[in-house]
C-alpha cells in the first residue's frame, strides 16, 4: 500500500499541497482527480521522492521510500521522455540498460496489444501512439505500483479506449495504480477509488462502488457536489 500522510509542500511562498493524505492499495486503481490547477503531479512526484515535501511522510508498504522500495514503483509522466529520433526498439534497449526491472517479454506483448511496430520512429508517431509508447515503457517494468500522470490527456478517443483496455487486461495484474486526470468519462467504471483534490487540498476520498451502492450517486455527481461548493 502507498500511504500519503499529511504532506505539505510550498514553492516559495506558494502553498501547493496542504495536509494531503490518502492511500492507494495494490490490486486497485486509485484516481486522483482535480478540475484545475496544480497539485496532482506534485503528489506523484512526492511519492517518487522527486520533489521534497515540507512536512508529512509517504510510506510504501509501510516503509519510507528507499532504494529497495524505489524499485517497486514507476512513474509514467504525461509526455514521452525518450529522444524523438529513437525507434521504439531503441527505447526498449535504453530501458533495458537503465532498469533492472525491465521485462522485455511484457514490453513485446504490450507492443502487440497496442498494435505498434518496434521499428517505428518516435518522432513519426501520432500523438495517441506516442502516449501508448510512453505508457508501454512504464508498464513493461516489473513493479508493484504504477503512477500515471494524465494518461488520457490530449489524445484521440480510440487511443483512449485502447489505453483503458489495458486496465482490464492481465497486463495490470495485481498492481496498484494511481492515475491523475481531470476527465473521468472513459474510466468511470474502471476505477476503485477516487481522491478529489482542489488547490492542493484533498476534498474527498471515496470508493466508487460504495458511493453508487449506498448513496445512488455517480462519481460525477459527487464531483459536482464537492467542486461546486
Amino acid at each position: 500500500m502507498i500511504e500519503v500522510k499529511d504532506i505539505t509542500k510550498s514553492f516559495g511562498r506558494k502553498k501547493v499541497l496542504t495536509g494531503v493524505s490518502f492511500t492507494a492499495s495494490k490490486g486497485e486503481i486509485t484516481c486522483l482527480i482535480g478540475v484545475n490547477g496544480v497539485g496532482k503531479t506534485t503528489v506523484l512526484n512526492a511519492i517518487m521522492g522527486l520533489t521534497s515535501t515540507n512536512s508529512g511522510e509517504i510510506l510504501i508498504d509501510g516503509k519510507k521510500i528507499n532504494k529497495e522500495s524505489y524499485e517497486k514503483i514507476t512513474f509514467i509522466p504525461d509526455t514521452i521522455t525518450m529522444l524523438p529520433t529513437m525507434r521504439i526498439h531503441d527505447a526498449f534497449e535504453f530501458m533495458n540498460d537503465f532498469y533492472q526491472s525491465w521485462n522485455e517479454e511484457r514490453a513485446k506483448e504490450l507492443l502487440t496489444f497496442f498494435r505498434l511496430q518496434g521499428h517505428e520512429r518516435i518522432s513519426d508517431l501520432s500523438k495517441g501512439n506516442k502516449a501508448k509508447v510512453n505508457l508501454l515503457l512504464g508498464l513493461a517494468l516489473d513493479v508493484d505500483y504504477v503512477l500515471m500522470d494524465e494518461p488520457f490527456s490530449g489524445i484521440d478517443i480510440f487511443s483512449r479506449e485502447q489505453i483503458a483496455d489495458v486496465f482490464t487486461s492481465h497486463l495490470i495484474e495485481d498492481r496498484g495504480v494511481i492515475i491523475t486526470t481531470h476527465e473521468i468519462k472513459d474510466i468511470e467504471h474502471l476505477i476503485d477509488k477516487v481522491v478529489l483534490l482542489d488547490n492542493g487540498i484533498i476534498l474527498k476520498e471515496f470508493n466508487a462502488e460504495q458511493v453508487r451502492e449506498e448513496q445512488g450517486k455517480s462519481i460525477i455527481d459527487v464531483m459536482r457536489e464537492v467542486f461546486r461548493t
Partner: protein
Amino acid sequence: MRLKLDSRAPVYVQVIRYFKEQIASGALEKGKEIPSRRELANTLKINPNTVQRAYKEMEELGLINTEGNLPSKVTKDDVIIRQVREGLLTEAIDTFVTSVQALQIPLEEVIPLLKESYEKERESGGI
C-alpha cells in the same frame, strides 16, 4: 454481450442482474461456461475487482458454480433457475402495477391493453 451501465447504480449489482436475465430467458443455458472474470471485465470495460465481486455473489446465490481452476458454469439446478425467473417477473409486475395504480386505471381496462402491447412487441421481435 452488451450492457448499458447506469453510472448511479453499483456495477456489480448490474452485472448480477444481467446474468439473471440471461439465465431466466434461457439465453445462457444451464451448465454453460461463462466468461472468465478478466474476459468479462474487458468486454464490459469494468473493473476486474467488481466482476470478481459479482461472481462471488452469484456463486453464493447458487447461480453459478466453479470447480477448482475451471471456468465458472451456470447452475444446472432447475429450482434456482425457476426462482430467478420468478424473482425477475415479480419485480417487473410490481413496477408495472405501481405505475398503473398511480393512474387509477381499473384492471379490466388494463388487461386487453397489456395483451395488445405484448403481442405488438412480440411481432416486432422485442420478446
